[in-house]
């Protein structure tokens, strides 16, 4: 099975035009298999979480009962982005799996909302938040090595508590950045092919090969996002992660959870900080 659909342009050029739509099912099944395997692993094989040391009592005493995690602006961005992303996936793929409806207008409007929200997020995170808090650092790598050693039965100290985001979150964010930006950038150019009233229609903006590759990249990013969104929703609903999910609704998490999983030295929370305000790193 080819992963791309090809065609001959009017000039005889062999060009890609789309991904093979069977990849929708491949990604959906792949995402589902990941969830099943992970759920079985956590249920039957995973050991209890262990961290190195314990919080310094003096530091712990300064932590408020509710630890602010996501500012209102960050939460609004997240849910607007989520709504746009789900709309994009539904409008893109339901027609391809046999649920026909007029999807194009909904799709590009959701895409425009996602694009604006992402631009906002990049600016907000770059200038008002701790930009680097979501990117893996040296401590993350060392702790990952420790976890791997312990998983393989080797002697190794326990990993340290997390900063604001565990390494898995950071890695997921990195993958979403790549796939999301690929879908957005190609999607913005694809808006030149339909009448949107926003961008002037110009089907000759690129050659057939470039357009074809753009559609392919958009499609690959799209089906990739099916699996990524499935995984994201799965983790958001897992009991042990639910505190984090709730913090994306209410903005804060309990002190106990914070002290148990996070390192106050890597994610400092000042005493008296409002539970609804912005944290140092959002």
């Amino acid at each position, binding site marked *: 099975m080819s992963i791309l659909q090809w065609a*001959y*342009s*009017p000039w005889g050029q062999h*060009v890609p035009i789309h991904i093979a739509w069977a990849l929708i099912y491949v990604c959906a099944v792949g995402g589902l298999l990941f969830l099943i395997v992970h759920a079985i692993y956590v249920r039957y094989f995973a050991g209890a979480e262990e961290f190195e040391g314990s919080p310094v009592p003096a530091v712990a005493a300064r932590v408020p009962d509710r630890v602010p995690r996501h500012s209102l602006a960050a939460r609004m961005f997240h849910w607007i982005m989520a709504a746009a992303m789900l709309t994009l996936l539904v409008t893109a793929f339901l*027609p391809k799996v046999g649920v026909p409806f007029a999807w*194009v207008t909904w799709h590009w409007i959701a895409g425009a909302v996602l694009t604006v929200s992402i631009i906002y997020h990049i600016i907000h995170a770059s200038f008002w938040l701790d930009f680097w808090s979501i990117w893996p650092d040296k401590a993350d790598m060392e702790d990952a090595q420790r976890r791997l050693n312990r998983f393989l039965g080797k002697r190794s100290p326990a990993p340290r508590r997390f900063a604001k985001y565990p390494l898995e979150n950071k890695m997921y964010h990195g993958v979403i950045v790549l796939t999301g930006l690929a879908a957005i950038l190609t999607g913005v150019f694809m808006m030149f*092919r339909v009448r949107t009233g926003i961008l002037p229609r110009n089907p000759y903006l690129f050659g057939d090969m470039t357009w074809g590759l753009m559609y392919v990249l958009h499609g690959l990013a799209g089906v990739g996002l099916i699996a990524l969104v499935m995984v994201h929703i799965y983790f958001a609903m897992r009991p042990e992660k639910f505190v984090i999910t709730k913090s994306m609704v209410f903005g804060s998490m309990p002190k106990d959870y914070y002290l148990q999983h996070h390192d106050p030295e890597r994610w400092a929370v000042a005493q008296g900080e409002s539970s609804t305000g912005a944290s140092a790193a959002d």
Partner: protein
Amino acid sequence: MAVIRDIMPAFDLLQPSSTAEAQKLLEQNGSDAWVMAGGLDSFDWLKDRIKKPRVLVDLSGVEELKGVRPASDGGVEIGAMTTLTEVVKHPFIRQHFALLSQGAELAASPQIRNQGTIGGNVSQDARCHYYRAGWPCYRAGGNICYADTPTGRNREHAILHADRCVAVNPSDSAPALIALDAKFVIQSPKGQRVVDAEDYYIGPDIDITHLNILKPGDLLTAIRIPATFAGAQFYFEKIRDRNVWDFALLNVACAMTVSGGNIDKMRIAVNGAAARPLRLQAVEQYAQGKPRNAATGVEAGKLAVQGAVPLQFNAYKIPLMRNLVKRAIAGVEVTT
């Protein structure tokens, strides 16, 4: 670019002799099967080697799909494989549903009407030259409309309801059937379903690669026309480049009952304006209860073209459609 080679690609030719057998073959072969009625659309595709089905199901031997059967309630059922000539000449249709015979008579040429079927005519594919040439346009599963480009030739294309693809439906009998409130009988692996004529068609916003709702395994078996407009006042007009033999640039079909000079009940449809034959419901609502005269026709014509978006070379279709609707409602003798 497609080149006619006159040698069709190899396929398995299956010639069922009953609807049940045809249905079974279609079910067995799914999307690999190509359904052929009169062959006038099919042979273009096959000889151009643009469509290469693995299996061709030729319905010409299915006698039960042929014939005109007047119903006891005053309506009529027409087998999908009935030729256009039979539809044109059948006395019952001429007497009660002359709108259909008028529309069918204006389709193509006498030779083609002798071979072409009513089922094939209502189900034929778009005639956009870029699509028929085998170019990878939206309708062919690609990602561009060659007709809707700055240099595209789009004189025959859509002015309404275009969505990426701007091809139009070419059928002459379809608007007549919509105006007569006909029902299409579709046999599918799940059983039989009956849909309104206007719901048989699908626009590019919903499905850009099909003009109708038929899925692999589906078979249009008959068309039923209810007695609703039997013997009513009809108007059919087709505008084409060559009057001897051509596809419609636009056509209009209107059925109405008039009492005391006022329009009592009316259905009107046009084709050649969009990817699906359009029933003009706003026009129908406006005209109901109004006198059948030029003033009503003028206003109805304006309503008909609301929302029309011309391409580079088909702006003429807007006044054309406005005038066709006006003439259909007012009656040609009133407006000329």
